[in-house]
């Protein structure tokens, strides 16, 4: 099995999968799954199946996960997955688990849950990726499908579960280094090409030109609102960190003072000839404050970064469209 071969080469394999091949039916299935089941604000998730070929990861099929509506979701999921993969093996579909996909709204997917899931996937299978599908952006005219993977640095941190500021400082990780994006290439097999010919012949003229639509304020407003919420969260986290460092320095001072007093007293007692007081365990007296976990801050920073990127892309598109409209008016 190919995973064993790759597993043996170890971390060197990591750099090899630079690019990604996704077959067309996967794209269509993901779109359909969101369209049918994701009309609420819940994200829809599913599993990607495929192979590793040469130095590329090929995704050849996928199947959706049921939503977490009942309470016995855990048990259902594992069994569901196992059964699905077993059945697909009977019909010669690649049953190798190479990743998972998730839908997102306005690009808000950098969360603890995603990190944990991706970590557990990547821990088990090194090549695994998460495909993020953005239906809002897609309905605006262009398919928005991105593939992400955790960087090796982040993997190590997650492994050790050391989220204190010192730990993160040691690893020297910034929010840009959390996820790395892998470029996607979509491929049609020959038969699908024939199918496309047939569809183009038989179906109506395409009347979807959403890409050139000028009305954009709605989308922009929503994105900015989400951005503002995140920035608020971020500022709260910063306040927390500041109070923590202030408490820490205050405590250091108190410790210092206490030690000094102790020494003085001991010196006095010695001059008077009495026994010196025992050295008490100062750590018990002055419990150091808990350092706040920095992982959330990192995630929020990553999310803010993502929002900003999206907003910038969106505005660049709109500027282009506005200039086109200006040209359309002629130079009158």
């Amino acid at each position, binding site marked *: 099995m190919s995973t064993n071969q790759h597993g043996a080469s170890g971390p060197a394999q990591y750099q090899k999968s630079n690019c990604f091949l996704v*077959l*067309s*039916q996967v794209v*269509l299935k993901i*779109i*359909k*799954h969101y369209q*049918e089941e994701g009309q609420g604000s819940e994200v829809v998730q599913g599993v990607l199946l495929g192979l590793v070929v040469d130095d590329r990861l090929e995704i*050849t099929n996928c199947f959706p*996960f049921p939503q977490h509506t009942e309470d016995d979701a855990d048990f259902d999921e594992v069994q569901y997955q196992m*059964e699905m993969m077993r*059945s697909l093996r*009977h019909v*010669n*579909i690649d049953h190798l688990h190479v990743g998972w996909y998730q839908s997102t709204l306005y690009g808000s997917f950098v969360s603890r849950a995603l990190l944990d899931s991706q970590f557990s996937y990547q821990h088990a299978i090194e090549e695994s990726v998460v495909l993020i599908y953005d239906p809002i952006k897609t*309905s605006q*005219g262009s*398919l928005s*499908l991105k593939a992400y993977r955790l960087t090796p640095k982040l993997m190590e941190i997650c492994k050790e579960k050391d989220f204190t500021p010192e730990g993160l400082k040691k690893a020297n990780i910034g*929010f840009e280094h959390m996820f790395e994006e892998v470029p*996607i290439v*979509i*491929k*049609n*097999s*020959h*038969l699908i090409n024939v199918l496309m*010919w*047939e*569809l*183009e012949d038989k179906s*109506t*003229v*395409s009347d*979807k*030109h*959403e890409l*050139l639509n*000028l009305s*954009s*304020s709605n989308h*922009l407003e929503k994105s900015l609102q989400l*951005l503002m919420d995140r920035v608020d969260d*971020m500022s709260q986290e*910063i306040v927390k960190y500041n109070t923590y460092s202030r408490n820490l320095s205050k405590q250091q001072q108190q410790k210092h003072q206490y030690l000094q007093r102790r020494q003085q007293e001991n010196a006095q007692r010695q001059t008077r000839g009495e026994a010196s007081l025992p050295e008490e365990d100062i750590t018990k007296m002055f419990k150091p404050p808990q350092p706040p976990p920095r992982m959330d801050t990192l995630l929020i*920073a990553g999310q*803010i970064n993502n*929002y900003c990127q999206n907003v*910038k*892309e*969106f*505005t660049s598109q709109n500027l*282009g469209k*506005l*200039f*086109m409209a*200006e*040209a*359309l*008016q002629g130079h009158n």
Partner: protein
Amino acid sequence: MVFVFTFYDLTLTERIFSSSALFKSKSFFDWRAHKNVQVGVKWLLWVCSRCSASFRQMAALARRGASLQPLSNMSVYGPVVKIHPVVLASISDSYERRNEGASRVIGTILGTIDKHSIEVTNCFSVPHNESEDEVAVDMEFAKNMYELHKRVSPTEVIVGWYATGFDITEHSVLIHEYYSREATNPIHLTVDTALQSGKMNIRAYVSAQMGVPGKTVGVMFTPLSVKYVYYDTERIGVDLLQRIRLATNRTKGLTSDLSQVGGAAARVQDMLATVLAYIEDVLSGKVTADNSVGRFLMDLVNKVPTISAEDFENMLNSNINDLLMVTYLSNLTQAQIALNEKLLLL
């Protein structure tokens, strides 16, 4: 990327303009909310389709108001079958992965049943063995898969089954009988993946009893009309796949946003070139003018709203200012969080 509207130069359109009262009116509208460019392109595409000979049939299909004509020339009986492209893609894929020696693949199709139509939205293949005199289908597997699928989308029911290949064999009758136990009046879908007639024919059938009651009774498969339906996002996905089809090595990366707008503009430019070529031909007398095309053209040109230059400047500038401000703010935010990171690491 900037294209100049040269329609104003043509004598034909000038004559139309001078007589049209619409040209003289100046209507104010909310620039933010109008979709005129989009609608304009839609009209443009219609005009384009009328002009070039190879698209004449497509244009006939694009006429609004009437429902789509049935695409096959066969008789229409029973419900209309609406297929989503995801189903066909899955069927092609399972055909490509069939076992050695198997000549065709069968499977179940799932969907929803309406009063007059059946919408097919999902499918899965079922392993089966076919030989000269017998056929064996793994029914247990089919039931299992259906249960699994039901957990994800509880609204989908079994509406029939599919088979790749052109003909309907005797084995099909048996399989159809099995499926009639699962669903009421199942549909049989054939997808000709072996391309026997040069094209991939996709047909749907429903079974009907025939023969003399009481004596020899047989089953006849009557064809149904097939339509393709898309969700909006699905349409966009399929458009991307169509473009991939035209690419050289059948692959395509997903490009950045601005270049996508550029690509869309290039496509509109191509369409305009076709329309212009047609108009040149009409003017030089090579092709007889078609009045309906002329009407479309006039609609198209009138879609460009006439606003005074000043108002337009104002609107444009305010929009550009909004966008620039948002860009500036997002850059600022990014710089802030980067700074925050660096300060922590000190």
